[in-house]
């Protein structure tokens, strides 16, 4: 075994980007990725968009080609699960019996969909209740993803809404159940929630809010044929997709005694509580300078940023994670782009009108800009990123006035972090 071996637990987007960046920064030791899935490291966003509708093939999701990984001398071990970490001996034990020693270990275990909390064994056994996180999750739904099929989506977050849009594009019959009073409640303000609910309804989705799922109706073969909601209502279903959140995969780290805090806790360089172990991506919580607190983000931009910072650390460079969180969601022909974290906002200012399907929602706290939701305002998004990064204090009436170019507001008064 080489004196210098970086072993990565996980082979997803963050793992893929980290390994490529590490090699490009001049690291000459071994790089080994051990992943549970059968595929090359791939990007997940298209799973609820173009890959689900069939417009994109899974090869287009790969972070790099197999040839690229081989050329960079990055070794990929698919279909293998890491079972434990021996921090004293600095090795990992895997499901195929192999033991791999590391100089440095990178945990990129990602997350898993939160499961339904219903205590009914038939729920676990039903073949037509689906979750969405992997390529295989999508292909298992493929036979049902056809015109006229009745899909019930449980959960009105990003994934639920994106799948609803994709399903309507393929002319399925779609009902979406959200247990809270509005969709996207976790991430947006009421005007944006209302806009998206109206958008989906006009596209033919039966959006039901305050509609907590209480159970299912099964046929004799154990397949779901209907869902039941708290108000006593019900909906017939051919298949069900549950998208009610993501849980970080921290169990391996926790068993090894690493610090956990809503994810594997790392510092701004990706370092865990063990000096020889880093963690990146959906499985981590990390300090965000911009937010001024520890966060766990489910965001590609955040994962890729963490990956590059960790690679820099391993290559002997220093690149703190200083980025402003940002995110995007595609539904129908609309682009929703988000920059910043809006928790704690006390004011929302709209620029442009939701009726025009092109508008911005600015989230402020004590007069300082925290975050922006941009709907079909692609050209303004770069400026929005700058405004949020600068934490400007702007007169709300200027934000609301679409005749004042946003670029002129970038020189607003920045607030100290």
């Amino acid at each position, binding site marked *: 075994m080489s004196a210098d071996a970086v072993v990565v637990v996980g082979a997803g987007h963050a793992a893929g*980007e980290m390994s490529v960046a590490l090699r490009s920064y001049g690291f000459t030791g071994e790089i080994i990725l051990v992943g549970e899935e059968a595929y090359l490291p791939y*990007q997940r*966003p*298209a799973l609820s968009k*173009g890959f689900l509708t069939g417009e*994109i093939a899974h090869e*287009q*999701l790969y972070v790099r*080609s197999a*040839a*690229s990984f081989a*050329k960079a001398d990055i070794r990929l071990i698919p279909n293998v699960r890491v079972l434990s970490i021996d921090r004293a001996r600095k090795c990992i034990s895997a499901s195929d019996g192999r033991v791999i020693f590391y100089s440095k270990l990178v945990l990129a275990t990602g997350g898993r969909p939160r499961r339904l909390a219903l205590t009914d064994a038939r729920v676990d056994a039903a073949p037509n209740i689906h979750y969405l996180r992997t390529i295989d999750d999508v292909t298992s739904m493929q036979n049902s993803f056809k015109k006229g099929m009745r899909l019930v989506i449980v959960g009105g977050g990003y994934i639920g809404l994106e799948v609803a849009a994709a399903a309507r594009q393929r002319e399925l019959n779609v009902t979406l159940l959200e247990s809270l009073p509005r969709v996207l409640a976790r991430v947006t303000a009421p005007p944006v929630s209302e806009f998206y609910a109206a958008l989906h309804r006009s596209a033919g989705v039966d959006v039901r809010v305050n509609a907590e799922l209480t159970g299912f109706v099964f046929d004799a073969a154990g397949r779901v044929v209907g869902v039941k909601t708290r108000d006593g209502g019900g909906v017939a279903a051919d298949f069900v997709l549950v998208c009610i959140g993501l849980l970080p995969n921290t169990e391996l780290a926790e068993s090894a005694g690493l610090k956990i805090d809503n994810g594997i806790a790392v510092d701004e360089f990706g370092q865990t509580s063990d000096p020889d172990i880093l963690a990146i991506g959906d499985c981590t919580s990390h300090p965000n300078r911009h937010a001024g607190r520890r966060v766990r983000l489910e965001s*590609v*931009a955040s994962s*890729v940023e963490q990956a590059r910072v960790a690679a820099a650390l391993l290559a002997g460079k220093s690149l703190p994670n200083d980025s402003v969180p*940002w995110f*995007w969601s*595609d539904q129908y022909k609309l*682009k929703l*782009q988000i920059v910043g974290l809006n928790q704690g906002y006390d004011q929302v200012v709209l620029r442009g009108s939701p009726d025009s399907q092109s508008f911005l929602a600015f989230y402020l706290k004590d007069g300082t800009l925290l975050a922006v939701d941009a709907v079909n305002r*692609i050209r303004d*998004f*770069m400026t929005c990123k700058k405004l949020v990064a600068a934490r400007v204090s702007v007169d709300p009436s200027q934000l609301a006035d679409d005749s004042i170019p946003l670029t002129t507001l970038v020189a607003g008064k920045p607030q100290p972090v």
Partner: protein
Amino acid sequence: MRKFRCRFCSHVYDERLGDPDSGIAPGTLFEDIPDTWLCPECGASKADYDLIEE
């Protein structure tokens, strides 16, 4: 003509095709795209692209 891949989403910038919807003519070299240009799919910036080497 080269192709560049967005690090965050599956978008590929093909120099041969450009990105006419954003005002980038076919044949525009990646280096010549303005720094204000964003990935038309997700909003990532020019700095978030990698050359596809195969």
